[in-house]
């Protein structure tokens, strides 16, 4: 799978397409990094969110996918722009965010006397930890309930009651929304593709499987090397 072969093939494919629908992956990467850099330069004006809302979305995105030694944060990968764009196109989605962000600020004020972005980093993380924990409990409760609902033995068990619903529920629902969209934006960006080490979307004259990968997996499998 040498580079020259790959490039030749891509060129050949491009030639067969009179409109040239194929962009070399490296070239595509370059274009998108340039676009991201322009956005990061502070020129991006939110379409759906107000300044405070957008700042909160940015902070949440940074907490959800932070920078680490391998890659940048979801903010570096354009997650806030992605969320803002889709919200600007869809009122239902925008209202989920407007409501969720307002709930989050109210809850932070109640707990810490400050809006989310103005709170200490530890307080912000503490809030997200509470939401994640509440989500886990809620999921466990639902799984249990579904088993009980299916079982006539337990349904007749009048004394049984499931865990009470948490009053963090609106926050849990909102956090799930911003988390999944942030994760999507990060991992579909050139930065995320590199972070996760996806090696595909190429073009080769021959398909080969590296021996090193096969040996690695076999050694760790029940079949040995």
């Amino acid at each position: 799978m040498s580079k020259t072969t790959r490039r030749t093939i891509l060129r050949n494919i491009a030639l067969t397409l009179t409109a040239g629908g194929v962009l070399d992956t490296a070239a595509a990467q370059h274009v998108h990094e340039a676009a991201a850099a322009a956005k990061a330069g502070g020129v991006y004006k939110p379409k759906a969110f107000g300044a405070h809302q957008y700042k909160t979305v940015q902070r949440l995105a940074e907490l959800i996918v932070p920078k680490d030694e391998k890659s940048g944060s979801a903010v570096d990968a354009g997650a806030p722009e992605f969320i803002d764009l889709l919200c600007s196109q869809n009122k239902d989605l925008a209202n989920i965010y407007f409501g969720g962000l307002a709930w989050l600020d109210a809850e932070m004020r109640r707990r810490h006397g400050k809006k989310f972005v103005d709170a200490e980093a530890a307080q912000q993380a503490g809030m997200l930890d509470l939401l994640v924990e509440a989500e886990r409990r809620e999921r466990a409760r639902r799984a249990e309930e579904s088993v009980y609902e299916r079982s006539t033995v337990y349904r007749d068990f009048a004394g049984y009651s499931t865990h009470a619903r948490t009053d963090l529920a609106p926050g849990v629902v909102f956090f799930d929304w911003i988390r999944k969209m942030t994760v999507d934006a990060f991992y579909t960006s050139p930065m995320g593709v590199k972070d996760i080490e996806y090696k595909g979307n190429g073009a080769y004259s021959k398909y080969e499987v590296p021996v090193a990968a096969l040996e690695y997996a076999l050694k760790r499998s029940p079949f040995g090397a």
Partner: protein
Amino acid sequence: MSQIQRAAEVHDVVVIGSGAGGGSAVQVLTEKGIKVALLEAGPMLDVRKEFKEHKWPHDYDHRGAEEGGKFYFGKGKDFGFFTTVSGGWQLEGEPYTVGEGSQFQWFRSRIVGGRTNHYGRMSFRFSDYDFKPYSKDGLGWDWPISYEDIAPYYDKAEEFIGVCGSVEGIRSAPDGKFHTPPPAKVHEVLIKKASEKLGIPCIPNRRAVITKALHGRAPCHYCGQCGRGCQTASAYSSSQVQIFPAMKSGRLKVYDNAMAREVLTDGNGKATGVVYIDKKTREERTIRARVVILAASACESSRILLNSKTKEFPNGVANGSGLVGRYLMDTVGFGLSGYVPAFEGMPHYDTDGYGGAHLYMPWWMWDKHDQLDFPRGYHIEIGGGYGMPSVGSFHGAARTFGYGKKMKEEIRREYGCRVGFAGRGEMIPNQNSYCELDRNVVDQWGIPVLKFHFKWSDHEWKQARHMEKTFAAIIEGMGGKVSGLSAAQRESQGISVPGTIIHEVGTARMGKDKRDSVVNGFCQAHEVKNLFVCDGAVFVSNPDKNPTLTINALTWRAMDYLADEMRKGNV
């Protein structure tokens, strides 16, 4: 029929539908010098506009979630933004209904090439015993043809469309004329080791993808995106491989956006043409032809037959048997995935390959039914590897691991460590599964729509339970852990929703006796000699072999017969 323009051109043959059956009919007939008119209910395919091959999610501001994030509300394109699906489970203004107590989903394509533009390209020959199922176990009916009758046409079809595979000598999976298959990926090598320990053969997959140049088509370049449509036509589609070349021959005229309503007959048992609605003008039009071929997909062809009512054919043309619409079958589907720690930390490589799995497991117990509590069998399709990160790829992992640096690390660790198994099994035709005209509903073209009724029987449920146990044993044999639904949930939800495997067949079956079938072994209507059905409707049974290759082969055989009959003046 007084409105028919007398001066209208009379074509040799009119074909309705441009998928595997219509494409093959067009190819074979035009090669023989016969002039064909092709009706397609959707638009002409523009490969460059329609196929998103090689695009990245970040080539789009919405990353594939579509405008306003439709994906997040379950309203995105069926099978995702990047696939080349021009159609779907629901089409605007073209409804279908489902009877009380039934579930059925009907996938329809509306574009030249139909579902062949994006299908899985699985290309399995039926086995000898698949044509004589009744003789084997007393269920269903035998086909009027045998493996020997169709084998030369499997050869022709494979050689023409191009299929990868290997010669194995396994009775359930007859060998064919194959291109060299690509090598097994790492997870597939482990799956093969685990399955062979259980006595299940695991062999190179058989897909309609070429690995050497064929009729001007470039060999596969291993981007793995066949579902998006293949710009180089290295993966077979009837549009690029059969219809476009036929258009160049000058013997094919394509009428797109032409929604067929009924077959016209002359009152003396002969078809004279087709009435269709021109979708652009909403005008009713007529095409006259010496021969009419229905290839609109099993249920759509049946709908046209049922809607073609005359004094001579009060139950619909060619439906003296009353069997049109009856014995609708889909494939039995069940899936299970697992997490395999052996892949954690493995050096990543490109697992896209030739699109879909490089190995599969054919049915292995055809002579061991005394050990089973269900008839017939299934094959196993496998999945795994490092998929292109897309919207939704990591939602599950994110929910499991919360947020932050830990989530990031866990996503890296888990990526590429899952394997998936999909069983594709044979359903026994039953009386409770059929489609009929809904007397109360018409589509936006004024054509009465179909109403579906469907029930899995115990045969199918028991087969799905066998799949589940088998897949779990393979996953555990690899040192993996079954993930997803709990055992209790699998027990109650563990079979595909009827229709969703998109192998619906059987609604105008072939047979020797006109009281017991709609068409003969050459796909020719018993009651109307110049009317043919060339799609899954003619299937007598629905073996665990995906239907497309058999539709190609049956059609080729039928068209050879038709050309002969036309030459002799019999049709």
